[in-house]
């Protein structure tokens, strides 16, 4: 029973991991940039939601669209002003530009908000549903539900909207897309802003069961990379599978190993996947 409980918890948490990580894989898929600063947008999303709760009394889950919007604007500016300049630069320049952004975001937050941990209190925080002998934590369930809505909206956007199709066309062949009248620079801005917006959205919906501090991004870096590499870097559908898998791996390893070793299992899975199937378990398809 403990085992089934762990799998259920893992799947619920994993849904959120998928939303947080989709942005990372989307940006890579569209423009070939690995954004090391992506996890900082979890932090930004959490802070926006925390302030919305503390100042306006809005539930963090309902503040998630606000988190999305703030990150979208930041992402739009970053892509236009900074990332666009290194699109054709060697990969080391791309890696270290985003590492620089990571340092700036984390320490900028430290300067503005201080290093203390903040959390919210909501009426449903400690509630859970019981299904037979299974317990389903309400905050987990709500976050999972929001992830589903978010995932469905993204799926519709990428599939059916003109922007989504134009973005996929740009990913496949930027110069051909340009000839068809698509502004590739604009598509990159949308993709980057959308990507970091989704990550911030994920940050907001986990706030009912997580705490936020300027360094919180560091907790998610390897986790997010594990999710996207499991699913194949660049594959949005793969990130969903990867997110669920990482959630389950974490929950199951917590049953067997002491808490200090929990991340170790994740790292080892990550390295093993890279070594054996760097294109991801699902196979790379954009």
């Amino acid at each position, binding site marked *: 029973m403990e085992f089934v409980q762990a799998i259920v918890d893992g799947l619920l948490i994993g849904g959120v991991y998928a939303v947080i990580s989709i942005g990372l894989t989307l940006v890579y898929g569209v423009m070939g940039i690995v954004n090391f600063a992506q996890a900082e947008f979890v932090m930004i999303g959490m802070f926006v939601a925390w302030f919305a709760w503390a100042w306006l009394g809005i539930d963090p889950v309902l503040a998630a669209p606000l988190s999305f919007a703030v990150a979208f604007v930041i992402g739009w500016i970053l892509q236009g002003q900074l990332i666009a300049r290194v699109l054709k630069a060697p*990969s*080391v320049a791309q890696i270290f530009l985003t590492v620089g952004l990571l340092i700036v975001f984390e320490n900028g937050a*430290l300067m503005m908000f201080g290093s203390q941990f903040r959390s919210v209190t909501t009426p449903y925080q400690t509630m859970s549903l019981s299904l037979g002998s299974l317990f389903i934590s309400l905050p987990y369930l709500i976050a999972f539900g929001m992830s589903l809505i978010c995932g469905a909206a993204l799926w519709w956007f990428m599939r059916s909207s003109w922007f989504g199709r134009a973005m996929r066309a740009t990913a496949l062949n930027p110069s051909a897309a340009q000839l068809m009248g698509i502004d590739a620079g604009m598509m990159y801005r949308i993709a980057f802003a959308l990507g970091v917006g989704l990550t911030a959205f994920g940050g907001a919906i986990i706030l009912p069961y997580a705490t936020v501090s300027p360094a919180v991004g560091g907790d998610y870096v390897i986790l997010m990379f594990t999710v996207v590499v499991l699913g194949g870097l660049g594959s949005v559908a793969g990130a969903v599978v990867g997110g669920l898998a990482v959630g389950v791996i974490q929950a199951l390893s917590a049953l067997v190993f002491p808490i200090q070793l929990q991340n170790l299992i994740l790292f080892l899975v990550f390295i093993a996947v890279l070594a054996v199937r760097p294109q991801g378990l699902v196979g790379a398809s954009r």
Partner: protein
Amino acid sequence: MKRWMIMLMVLAVALLLPLSLDPQGYWIRVLTFTFLFAAMAQAWNIVGGLANQTSLGHAAFFGIGAYTSTVLLMKFGISPWIGMIAAAGLGGVAAFAIAIPTMRLEGHYFALATLAFGEVLRVVANVWTSVTGGSSGISVPFSPPSLANYSFKLLRPHAYIALAALVIVTAIFEAIRRSAMGYRLQAIKENASAAEVIGVDTTKIKLQAAIISGMLMAMLGTLYAQVAVFFDPDTVFNAGSISIRVALIAILGGVGTPVGPILGAFFIIPLEELMNDWFSASAAGLSQFAFGLILIIVILWRPRGFVTLFKSFSAKVGRAHA
């Protein structure tokens, strides 16, 4: 001016520098760490520059080196000089173990896999308390000051040892770069499959580069332990302040060139110290924030490093002469 004359002058300045600084003071410590980090970035440069594999996990070897010599000294009273050789051995073994699964990866994938490896060792060092002392850290036991014990009252000898390390690692880097191995690495960097076709054993060459780099990095870890005297797993296995910083130094200076890591270290390490000095009183995070901004600006301005400044300068001078 001839190249060797410039080199001699730089070396003479480097030799005089420790003498000119207050031996009890703060800046001789900064200078020692600048030499040390330049040497570390140079060791990284063998993999990151010559083989073009951006490793973000070199803290793994560095931490192994720091712990190997310190544990040998603590438990068996073995001199850190011998400990340094043991560190090189273990660093080489670790580099081999890491290279096997990651060698075929390229670009971002290689960076990510090595980053995770460094983190694995950090977690292991934190948990394996019987050997490492865990997260409460480890102190290098006191030995009577002498060269044989690698123990000194003042920092000046440490500065010279770090300088010697920098010269030696740079010489090794340059020797590899100009050897057949260097040309094979160059060929792999330009086009791996073409190199394979003309008979370069790409796996073997990359493996050799990784092992040499790992061994040197581990020996520099021992050097660090002797200067720092106290450290913990989160310091020596740190992804940000060791792995990424070392790569960053080489990249800002000019990756794949022998002067790049030296330029980078003399830019970054004193800059960080100065900013800590200026800003630490005003607000937490401000110095790192400014550091991140400078990093972004430099990367946008000189994506191939400071070395290109000299190249464009000498190109201008060359045109003026013509």
